[in-house]
Every structure is written in C-alpha cells, then in structure tokens.
C-alpha cells in the first residue's frame, strides 16, 4: 500500500458536540412536561433538535443506537420491564440520513454497530450519509457484546465476555476478539471509502468509457474473520474518509480507538460502575493513558499507515443547566425521585447539574488537562439542549474555548466562493483533507 499523504492537521480546534438519545439521558427525562415523550419516533421531533443544535452553532450531534431494546419487557428478570423508561429506538444512521437534507452545517454522527452487521452495508451506508450531508458525516463505532444482540441476529454465538473482568480493566479474550473484529470492520470501511479515487468518473465519449477503471480499486480485505472483495458500490464521498469516533471506558477499547479512530470519547470523573475501568479517574490521567497508547510504536505505525493524525480526545458530560424557572439541581433531584434511583450512580459519564458558570469552569479545567472537546449529553430534551445552545455555548466562546459564532457558522454564504470543505466534519475536528491510500498519483493529493 502506498504511503498516505495530504492528511495534514491544521491545529486542533476545541469542539462542542451534543449527544442525542430518546428524551434525554435521565431515565425519567421523558416525564418532564416539556419532553416530546409522545413523539419520540416522529421525524419532526428529531429535525427540530438538529435545527436547534445547528442554529446555536454546535459542531456535531451524535445519535445513540444499539440492536436491542434498552430493556426487555419479555424478560421477567429485567428490572426495567415495567415500562417506566423509554423503550425503543429508531435506526440512528437512517435518522441521520433524514436530518441531513434538513440541515446544512452541523456534523452528523450516528452510532452504527459492528460485530453482527455486514461491513459492506455499514461502510456504504455511512458513505451515502456523507454524500447526502455533503461532507458532514461521521461514524460512532460500537461493538455488540451482549447476548441479546447475538440472539436477535441468530448468526453467530454470543461472545463469551466476563463483564466483571472487563469493568476492572482485566484482559478478556472474548472482548479482544470483538475489538479485533471491529478493527477489521473499520479497516474495510476505510479501504472501501478510498476505493474510488476522486476523479474515477471520466465520461469520455471518445472511448465510450464512463469510468477510468484504473482509478477504482478492489480492496481485497482478508482476515481470520472474514474477507471482503470491494470496491465500494458508492463513489468517493465529499470527505473521502469519515471521522470515526469510539467511546472508550478502558484501555483495550481506547487501543481500538487508537488503531482505527479519529476521535476517542472518554468519561472522566464518573464514579459509577458503568464508567468502566477508568471510573473516577481524573481527566489528566485518562489523557496521559491514551497518549501513551497512541505512542506505542505498533499503534503509531498503524495510525500512520491509515493516514490518521493525533487522536482527538473528547470528554462526555451529562449536563443540566439552571433555568429562570428552576435550578438544575432541583430538576435532577425531582427526576431521580421519579426514577427511584440517583442517575449519577448509573451514568457512565459525569453528571453536572448547576449554573452555566460551573459547567464553564469544569470544561475549562478539562481543556487545560488536555481534552480536545466535549460532547454534552442533555439531561432532558429539548430543554437542556436549549440552554446549552443559548447560554453555555456563548459563554464558552466568550472565554475563548469554543470557536466564535462567525467562525463556526462555516459554510454560510458570506464569501463569494465558500470553501466546500468549510462545513465538513473533518474540518470541525481539524483533521485536514483526507488522502487516498489507492491514489496512484501522490502529488495530486499533496
């Protein structure tokens, strides 16, 4: 494979994104009077959230997903079987496809699982999202380690993973296998995304050729797990390479991120068991751990071979901000009472409920500790998304942490000839233009 060029990083902008799921991240969020509990599966609910996030200038939104229900009402042993929490999810990638033509600037990062899905479908689906959004697509890659997903697909047995071992960061052969499988899927996606060179379509009437087939490449991927021939069915998309995002709670998953991803999301300062092996760890320690993984010579070589720059480390934070009507703490206490349990004890990400200033100080401190951005999980939707956009984001800009509004309104037709890559998701993460591993004329990509 030819070395990849042209993937120059242009400094690392601090990003502020938002993570969407159901009626918000609190299990009782749907019971808020302002929630859209009765329309969580309606298109307009999601379009309105995306429009609001875009209007306020957030860099991207992510959409949570998995192959199984949040709780299984058919399972007598499942504590959530009483139907007290939100059940059901739309397919996140398709939701992003729906939102894409209704927005023009915000990045769209759906969760799409590996393990049971077909890498070819996953890669071409995301590539199509990049076409539909004209370069605003990303992929939050997630494995399906649960037995329920395996039973739902019925194609391969459930992996044997010891959840306790994994939670304590102990090595686990089952997990390693799923992570290796996910790395295969990511590698297949990366190759398929490059398999058409940008100018493969030539429309040469003289020779009757639509395509220059020398610029369309089989990927010939073979691993112990599967093989994929390629090339992609989809011509190269505007970004070429989509940013891949991995949420990591432990070193083995961070290692996957370091091998294949552009962005790793971490959950510092949460003491809940759900925060995994890194629970309760301060930001600086997590950042140092990830940088150490990244410096491992084998991993550094893998990143270089894939044309990946330094990992962007993004921290997750569940957020509820004070409003004129109610201090956020009261809202959290009220929702905890409805849910019958304190949410902070079961949230993998730290929960902050308080005034804007408190959130601002925390984010500033995290940034000083080496974080490249935050992904905010609104405690309730749409209410907490609204205060994030209306109050926190301007405060972050004023403080010089987030890019200012004019800058982040990239792609708006201010200039006579707007840069078509200005609103690309890669640009928001400061990833620069992606090279192409199959490009035969390297100077063209320089």
């Amino acid at each position, binding site marked *: 494979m030819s070395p990849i060029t042209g993937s120059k990083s242009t400094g690392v902008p601090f990003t502020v994104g938002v993570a969407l799921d159901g009626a918000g991240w609190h299990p009782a969020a749907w019971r808020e009077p302002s929630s859209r509990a009765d329309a969580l599966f309606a298109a307009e609910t999601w379009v309105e959230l995306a429009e609001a996030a875009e209007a306020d200038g957030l860099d991207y939104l992510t959409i949570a997903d998995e192959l199984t229900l949040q709780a299984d009402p058919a399972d007598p042993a499942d504590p959530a079987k009483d139907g007290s929490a939100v059940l059901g999810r739309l*397919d996140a990638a398709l939701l992003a496809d729906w939102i894409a033509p*209704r927005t023009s600037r915000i990045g769209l990062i759906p969760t799409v699982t590996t393990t049971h899905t077909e890498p070819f*479908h996953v890669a071409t689906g995301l590539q*199509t999202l990049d*076409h539909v959004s004209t370069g605003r697509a990303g992929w939050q890659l997630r494995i399906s380690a649960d037995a329920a997903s395996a039973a739902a697909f*019925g194609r391969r047995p459930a992996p044997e993973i010891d959840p306790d071992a994994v939670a304590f960061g102990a090595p686990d052969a089952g997990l390693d296998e799923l992570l290796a499988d996910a790395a295969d899927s990511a590698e297949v996606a990366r190759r398929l995304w490059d398999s058409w060179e940008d100018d493969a379509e030539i429309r040469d*009437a003289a020779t009757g050729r639509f395509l220059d087939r020398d610029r369309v490449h089989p990927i010939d991927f073979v691993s112990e797990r599967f093989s994929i021939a390629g090339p992609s069915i989809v011509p190269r998309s505007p970004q070429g390479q989509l940013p891949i995002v991995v949420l990591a709670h432990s070193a083995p998953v961070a290692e996957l991120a370091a091998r294949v991803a552009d962005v790793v999301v971490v959950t510092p300062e949460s003491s809940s068991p759900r925060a995994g092996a890194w629970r309760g760890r301060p930001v600086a320690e997590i950042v140092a751990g990830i940088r150490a993984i990244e410096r491992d010579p084998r991993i550094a070589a893998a990143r270089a071979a894939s044309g990946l720059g330094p990992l962007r480390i993004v921290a997750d934070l569940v957020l509820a901000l004070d409003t004129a009507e109610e201090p956020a703490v009261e809202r959290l206490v009220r929702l905890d009472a409805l849910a019958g349990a304190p949410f902070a004890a079961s949230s993998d990400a730290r929960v902050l409920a308080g005034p804007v200033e408190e959130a601002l100080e925390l984010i500033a401190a995290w940034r000083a500790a080496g974080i490249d951005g935050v992904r905010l999980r609104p405690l309730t939707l749409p209410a907490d998304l609204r205060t994030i956009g209306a109050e926190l984001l301007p405060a972050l800009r004023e403080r010089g942490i987030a890019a200012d509004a004019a800058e982040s309104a990239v792609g708006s037709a201010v200039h006579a000839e707007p840069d078509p890559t200005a609103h690309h998701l890669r640009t928001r993460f400061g990833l620069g233009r992606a090279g192409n591993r199959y490009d035969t004329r390297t100077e063209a990509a320089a």
Partner: protein
Amino acid sequence: MSAAPESARRVHLVAHFPGVNSTTVWSDPASGSHIDFESFRRFAQTAERGRFDYVFLAEGLRLREHGGRIHDLDVAGRPATLAILTAMASVTRSIGVVGTLSSTFNEPVELARQLATIDHLSGGRVGWNVVTSPDAFHGGNFRRGGFLPYAERYRRAEEFVELAKELWDSWEAGAILADRAAGRFVDPERVRRVVHRGPQFDVSATSTVPRSPQGYPVIVQAGDSPAGRDFAAANAEIIFSRHTGFADGQRFYRDVKGRLPAAGRTEESLLILPGATFALGDTDADARERSREIALAQTSPQTAIAWIEAIWGRELPGLDPDGALPAQEPGDGDQRQGQVSTRVEDRVARAEQLRERARREGLTLRELVAAETAQHTLVGSPGTVASEIDRYVRERASDGFVLVPHITPGGLDEFVDRVVPLLQERGVFRTEYEADPVTGAAPTLRRTLGLPTPPRPRTEVRRVHVSDPLAKPLLDDLEREYDARYGVEVFGEPASTELARYPAEAFAEPHGGAFLVLLRDGEPISGGAFMRHSDDTAEFKRIWTRPDHRGRGVAKVVLTELEREAARLGYSRVYLTTGPRQPEAVALYLGHGYTPLFDPALPADEVGVHPFEKPLAPVGVAGATAQEVAA
C-alpha cells in the same frame, strides 16, 4: 379528480431512478450527477409534482465486471438504498419511496428495524422490493459470503419476510402510553418477543422499533420464475414485472391474478406494474425519430461490442461495430459478472438467432444490439402515450407502469409536464394525493396505491365447554405430551386418568369454573381452564400452547385472560400446580407474578408437584386482554 368514464381503471405510475446499465445515457449534455444528492432530490420532487405513486431505487451489491475487470462503459456507482430512500422521503411529503433490498445478504432483525424506521420517519411511505441475490460474485462483498442454491434462495426469502412481519407485528399499536402521571412510557404487555426457529433463521428478538404507521412496508416483488410467481401470490402487493408487451402483459396479468384466490387474496390486493422506457415527441413521427436517437446513444460502439462479447462468452478483439456479427462460434466464459440479463443458457443457439435477425433485417452489429436492448416501450406524442397507458390498464395488461427515464436527473420532467396532465384529463390518474380522511396527514403509500390493509393474524379468546371440538386438539396434545414427559412412573398413572378426573361441569361458569381457548384465525393455538379450589381461590388447570406457537408470549396472554375471568367470577386468589419436568411452565409462572409454594432451591424432581399462588387484582386492573392484543 374529474369523473372517470365507466370503464376507467386507476393508473399507477412509478418513477425509477435511472440505473447502472446502458439504458441510462451519460454522454448526453443534459446528464447530471448519478451520486450527488441534488439529483435524487430533484428526481423525487419531480415525481411528486407529477403525483407518482412512488420513487423506486434498485440496489447495488457489487460493481459489474466485464472480462474480469470493472465494467467501465455504463454509469457505475450508486448510493446505499436505505440511506437514499430515507433522504428522498425527507425532502418530499406524499410520494412513496421503494427500494430493492436483498433477502440473501441482509438479516431480518436489522432490515426490519431499518424499514420500520423509514416508515416512522416518512409517515408510512416506504416499500420493499424483495429480491434474492444470485451468486458467489455478490457474496464476495459480504462476511456471510458464498451464495445459496436457487431453491434455497426463495425459501430464505419466504422465511425472511415471515420473520420480518412477526417483528413488525411484535409491538401492538398503542403500546406506547407516554403516561407521565402514571410513569408508564410503554405497556410491556403489548411488546412481544419474537422467537423464531426455522430452517433459515434461528432468532430470538424483541423489536427495537414500535409499530410503524403502515404496520409494515408495502411488499414489492420482481422475480418471474414459477417460484417467484408463487412467492408474489403469497406475499407481494406489487409486482415489478418485465412483461411490457400488451398481449404478453395480459397473459402474465391473468396468470398471476389467477393465483391470488388460492392464496386467499382479492384481485385488488396485488398490483402489476411492468417497467417501461419511453420516448416522447410533438408527433408520433417525431417520437419515433427521438426513440432512434436515444437507442443509438444507449448503444455506443463499445457498448454494442461488449454486449456481443457477453452473449458470445469470449473476448472478440477487432470486432467492427458497424460490420457484421462475429463469425466465430461462442465460447463458454462468463464475460459479464453482476448482471443477470446477459446470462445465456445456450450460447450457440442464441448467437445463431442473432445472426439470423441481423441477416433478415439487414442490421449492422450495433443496429442489432440497439434493436435487441434499446427498444422503448412507450413511443409517441404525449396524447398517444397517455392513451396507450390507459389502454394497458383498462384492458388488464397492467395496473400502470414503472417508468425508466434515460437521463439523470431530468429524464422524468417531460413526462410529468406533458403526459401526466393528459392522464389526469382522462380521469384515470390522481390530480392530488389523497390525505388521510381522519388525520388530514399525507397518505401512506398503501393508501396512495389503493391497496387494502393486509390482514393481521386475528387473535381471540373464546369461552368453551370441555367437550367443544375447539378444545379437543389442546386436550389431545396435552395428554400426548404429559405421557411423553412423565410416562406413568412419576405420578403412577397415565395422563388420561388426570384429564378425566374432574367432571366437565367443574370447568363451567355455574360451578365457578371456565375453559378458555385462544384462537388465531379461528384455530386453537393455546388455552387453559380453572375450577373452584375454595370460595376465594380458583385453581388453574390445563394451560397449554401448541408446540409451534411456543416461546412467543402466547401462554402469557392465556394466563392473563384466565386471571381476568377468575377475577370476574369473584375469586381473589389463584392456586395452580405444575410438574417437575415442565421448567418452561415454572418460568412462565415465576415471570408472571406467581409465588412458589415450594423451595425453588431444591432440584425439581425432589420438589415433585410444584404449587404456586397469586393474589388477583380486582377486575379492570389486569394487563392486556386478547382483544387489545388483536387490536
């Protein structure tokens, strides 16, 4: 819509996004991008302006190859079907979106949730063209790999659709309560787990997507073989047919619609829509000239040679496109991969047939290929074409057409501007989409197509006497299975002794008992009974589910119904027993709020008879009823 003449039949029109084959002309200056979303937006919005029933998109699983290399003469590359259908639905309001999706290289639980997602987002406008994928060539792009033999492909497709429908039916309408005050988002009794163990799929899944507006997508089918026709008669609501000739179309129409009664379906529940290319002109003569020009553009010299090579099964270097057909005899190498239409059974016979036609009609190689591959279905002035479409539909050669323009994305414009108004004047084509009469919302695709809501399995609970024939299959099964599990050694008697122990009257209302059977489409699939145990306690007996319906929550419905009925008769407590060799029954009762009156830590055989009890809530608070389940 203006009043239609007596004999008029409604015309249905579908807009096929130009495909990756030689029908699509890329050399025309008007030809735009095949991949930019703007082309799809424009195409879908034009079709909606023309009040088409739906936009259709084919699927690509692998780039086509010719002579072992990527075929470079035709438009190549396309978006992923599901993604682009969703985005097209997002920029339209009423038109349907239908795509081809393989049942060979997808998995039911994933595809079912994807289609249900689009149905939710679009307000019920999605359809699925179910195809089977033919070969290992396509399998090369999938981890599942390989391919299935022909017959197996259709068996997989059948079972795929059946399982997908179970998943789409697994959330009852109204399962989402979103009741803030009561703190109940969903009624878990109305969400069923689907357990499916068939030859093709072994799945246990609870759908992640609530029931969507249409319940499930409109099912389209394109296969034409006898197996394909039977599949269509059983499952399809639309056939995307290749029978575009008038007489041939009528034969096909009669054949397929004739298969419907045997499948218990009406003629109106299946529409037949052949694919059709078209060429328009101010006059019929202009249109014929236009058709010739388009055919020539569709058959470039290189395309003509490549097509002949595909038929001949060998490379034919130095062939003159403006000369005669090759004198060489065909080989047997598959030149073309990934395109079914160029596959030939008997190459020698086919080559001779083509030579004969070229001789007879005095055609050059390129002219012959144009005549074979680029003949347009509808050629004429707008008036001629409108009248021809009307005739096809009126005289039952089709129910309309899937129109395949040759230019992306503007190839539909002229048809929409010039032919559609004439069809509307004739009163055979809608002038507006018909909104939902109740909600005023944009129509579902099924409503636009005028298709009946497909029947869902009808479930009802019936109170019967023990001697009722409806109870007999259950009692017979019960006896067989008890004997198989216990023989006589566990209880010292055959099951028939236990089953005959109590008089039939014990299970009748005057004596404080009841016998219920659960019927699906009139057939008993489960049941149960109770009798008076004491003044305040009913004893449940005979709870049974037909083996092929187990693991789907059916017994839970029966249990709930029995509890309701017992509460109605004034009981406040249930007592029941089961045996040591019925772990699934023990699990059922434990999962349904029953308290074991034995030590669950002991081995089952040591426990022997397993007694349970449960207090009954007063009438009206119980969970889902069978009526609600069937709603």
